[in-house]
């Protein structure tokens, strides 16, 4: 048995993030509360550093290392870059919120960085073991982050719920993986995909697939495995909700792609059916139940569920352009979700959490500019052109129709009409109702600048979505 030294350079960004996260963990111990902003700055610098490390070595081909359990291809690089950017925005938005709620400690940022590492591992995973490793690293940090505000009953409840349900989902996933391993005798996704057509006992394979899908659907939050989403989104501190609702969606999508496309493409017929059910249920339940919500965080939670349904539509087509459309959708969703939760943080101030719908009442009188930004974000989520969310829906629908599933496209648009109602209600509250609370918005300059950039990006990329779409397509097709 000969031992090869793996090519470490491919995992350089991961190693950089790990090292920096450990350094920040220690560094934070020696920083007084007044200088906590140094921890924040260092965390942001880490993300910027990782961004450039990944960008400098942007893949054009697919490379493997660590005995084929780690993959680096254009898709992984694009996703990682988006994860850094999302985490950067999350940290920036979170800073003010954490200060106001006396939670401005190093833990948030350290955990956040470990979470980013977990996502990167998931994105680059090429064996069942690596997928699980990344997933657990991410999940554990998320459980801890939800419970960060330990005196809050709601947050503790949410964390507990998240942990228990998450553990069950992980168990399902592991069970499915063990079946796959049992049938194919390998953990390597590429080898699994070669083995699949030769397996005699297809039943066992499909059983394994079903358990895998349960695990993945839970992490994505697709109906009927969505129960944790509203409670966790609602219970967690808004800064943590912001984190959970953004970058992890990219990682969960990556996990879906790795498992279903890299590993089990041979079972496309089987998983297509499962995904159709998940997608239709998610769009239906998500959009309908969102109408009844009065808490905006909860409403965004249901809206997230419905967006996941749309996201699955692209994957289930099983074509490269379908995957690209879904990738485009998830990136779009992350951008809109960041903006949406960012607005909640913007309206919050010390001792006041703007998480009820009525807290947005008359925002147009209080601040026309941010009302306009929220308007852009909301119409984008509803899928009204010319904003970015429309193109995301359009590209997914186009792929669905191209796969001869017009009925599915019709179902999707019907649910998006239902969805439009609760989005319109937010606009109504902001624009048509008279303001009761006339206190000015308090927040830092960088927060204002970032919210503005976020809103305008949704508009500008919406006017010129071609480049982002081409980027997604090339990330899927090359390498």
């Amino acid at each position, binding site marked *: 048995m000969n031992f090869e030294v793996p090519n470490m350079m491919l995992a350089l960004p991961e190693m950089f993030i790990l090292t920096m996260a450990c350094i920040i963990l220690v560094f934070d111990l020696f920083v007084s509360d007044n200088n906590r902003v140094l921890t924040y700055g260092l965390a942001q610098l880490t993300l910027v550093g990782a961004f450039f490390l990944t960008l400098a070595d942007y893949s054009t081909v697919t490379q493997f290392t660590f005995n084929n359990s780690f993959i680096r291809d254009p898709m992984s690089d694009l996703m990682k870059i988006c994860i850094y950017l999302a985490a950067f925005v999350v940290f920036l938005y979170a800073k003010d919120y954490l200060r106001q709620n006396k939670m401005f400690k190093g833990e948030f940022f350290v955990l956040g960085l470990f979470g980013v590492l977990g996502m990167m591992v998931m994105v680059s995973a090429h064996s069942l073991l690596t997928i699980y490793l990344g997933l657990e690293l991410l999940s554990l940090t998320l459980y801890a982050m939800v419970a960060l505000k330990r005196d809050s009953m709601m947050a503790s409840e949410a964390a507990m719920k998240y942990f228990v349900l998450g553990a069950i989902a992980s168990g399902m996933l592991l069970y499915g993986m063990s079946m796959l391993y049992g049938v194919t005798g390998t953990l390597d996704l590429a080898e699994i995909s070669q083995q699949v057509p030769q397996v005699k006992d297809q039943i066992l394979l499909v059983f394994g697939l079903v358990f895998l899908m349960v695990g993945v659907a839970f992490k994505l939050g697709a109906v009927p495995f969505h129960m944790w989403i509203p409670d966790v989104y609602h219970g967690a501190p808004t800064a943590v909700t912001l984190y959970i609702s953004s970058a992890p969606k990219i990682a969960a999508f990556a996990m879906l792609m790795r498992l279903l496309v890299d590993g089990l493409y041979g079972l496309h017929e089987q998983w297509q059916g499962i995904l159709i059910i998940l997608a239709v249920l998610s769009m239906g339940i998500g959009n309908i139940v969102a109408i009844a919500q009065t808490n905006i965080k909860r409403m965004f939670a249901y809206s997230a569920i419905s967006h996941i349904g749309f996201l699955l539509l692209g994957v289930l087509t099983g074509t490269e352009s379908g995957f690209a459309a879904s990738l485009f959708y998830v990136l779009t969703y992350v951008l809109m979700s960041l903006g949406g939760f960012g607005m909640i943080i913007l309206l919050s101030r010390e001792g006041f959490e703007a998480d009820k719908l009525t807290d947005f009442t008359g925002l147009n009188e209080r601040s*026309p500019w941010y009302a306009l930004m929220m308007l852009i974000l909301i119409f984008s989520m509803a899928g009204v052109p010319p904003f970015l969310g429309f193109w995301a829906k*359009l590209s997914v629908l186009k792929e669905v129709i191209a796969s001869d599933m017009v009925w599915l496209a*019709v179902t999707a648009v019907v649910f998006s009409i239902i969805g439009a109602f609760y989005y319109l209600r937010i606009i109504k509250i902001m624009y048509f109702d008279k303001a009761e609370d006339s206190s000015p918005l308090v927040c830092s300059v960088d927060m204002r600048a970032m919210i503005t950039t976020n809103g305008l990006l949704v508009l500008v990329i919406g006017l*010129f979505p071609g480049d982002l*779409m081409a980027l997604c397509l090339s990330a899927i097709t090359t390498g």
Partner: protein
Amino acid sequence: MFSDWPLLSLVIWIPVLGGIVVLVAGSYTNSATARIIALLFSIITFVLSIPLYTDFNTATAAMQFTELSPWITAFKINYHLGIDGISMPLIILTTFMTVIVVIAGWEVIQDRPAQYMAAFLIMAGLMNGVFAALDAALFYVFWEAMLIPMFIAIGVWGGPRRVYATIKFFLYTFFGSVFMLIALLYLRLESGSFSILDFHAFKMDLDVQILIFIAFLLAFAVKVPMWPVHTWLPDAHVEAPTGGSVILAAIMLKLGAYGFLRFSLPITPDASHHLDWLMISLSLIAVVYIGFVALVQQDMKKLIAYSSISHMGFVTLGFFIAWNILDNTGKLDGAAMGMQGAIVQMISHGFISGAMFLVVGVMYDRLHSREISAYGGVVNTMPKFAAFAVLFAMANAGLPGTSGFVGEFMVILSAFKANFWFAFLAGTTLILGAAYTLWMVKRVIFGDVKNENVAKLQDINNREFLFLSILAVMVLLFGVWPAPLIEVMDASVANLLQHMMQSKL
């Protein structure tokens, strides 16, 4: 001299830019500046749209003033603009009515006037975009984006039930449009391009055509609106601010009719032929039944809203009787006349309904009531105003000499060639229209002064005189001399009929 200017881009983007400037100006200066900027931008846009008429080549049905550049290459979507004789008058109507709306909202809107003006300017740009787009995806983007400013306009500056009305308006239109999106995506995948002109040349089976026709019908019927999906319109009209009602009636309803001309008829001619009985029935129901509904309205705006639905029934009737006429006479002349009459009706209805809503708006600004019973004997206190009101009411009833007569007459005349009963039912509108309009005029304008509120009314000021007289001139001008309008659309209508009569199976 304008031939190398990107005129269509200018009439789309100048008002949008104007809207942004007005918004910015509104937050840093007083509202008077914002109003003046809005007026300036609307006039510039109108002036820029005039060369579209003067430099228009009436001899050809080909698209003119075309602009083509790639927009979203990943989806093969182009920024493709162009107009023919059908869309050109509608663009000029839009830019013209926008000027009127800006003047009409001048002092009336006191609450956030900059945002009001901005909403209407942006809307004008987007509506011009709908009329000028030759790429289906671009068309859809404009078509949907236009809902946003209208939604805001009704919701912010509307009446007491504005929230209900505006959400109903948005959801109805959104509901129709998404099915059109599916149809457009299907056409894109089958034909390999998003160009509307390529769609015109594309052949499909009848059952596919029927499905696509229905998808289009959902989008356009809601917008026109046709019975039975018209119920959003009275609500939206009643609650909208005057400017919103004017734009809704004058332009937005025409978008639905335009959609039939640009999409349904030429892309799915066989399905249109196959289902023309349905379209004719729906049109006649709109004309007759909605005419009766208008008769019993207590609210002036609601009455005009129903009258709009009834008049738009004429437009769709004019479009869809073409096959019947061809079967009966074997010639396309009658069909062409019906089509032209319908388009003339679109333009004329733009002026008349806009004017009617402005007339109601003038009274509403004074008494804050739209109820017919709140008025009576207005002529005694507002004689100048009464003259305008009576003129527009006559035009609405289709009196010869006004533009309302031309379109209706042409459609009824061609309906005779299709089927006597079509013409008979359509003709009842001359009675019904006269009945509901003139009865309202009688109760509101004539008679003795009804109460002390009416007795205290002030006659119209110069600003109101200005916009009412401009509209009066247009109504009379097109009433006695519609030739220029018919001339510009002649070639395009002939071309459209060619497409319709050619089987695309």
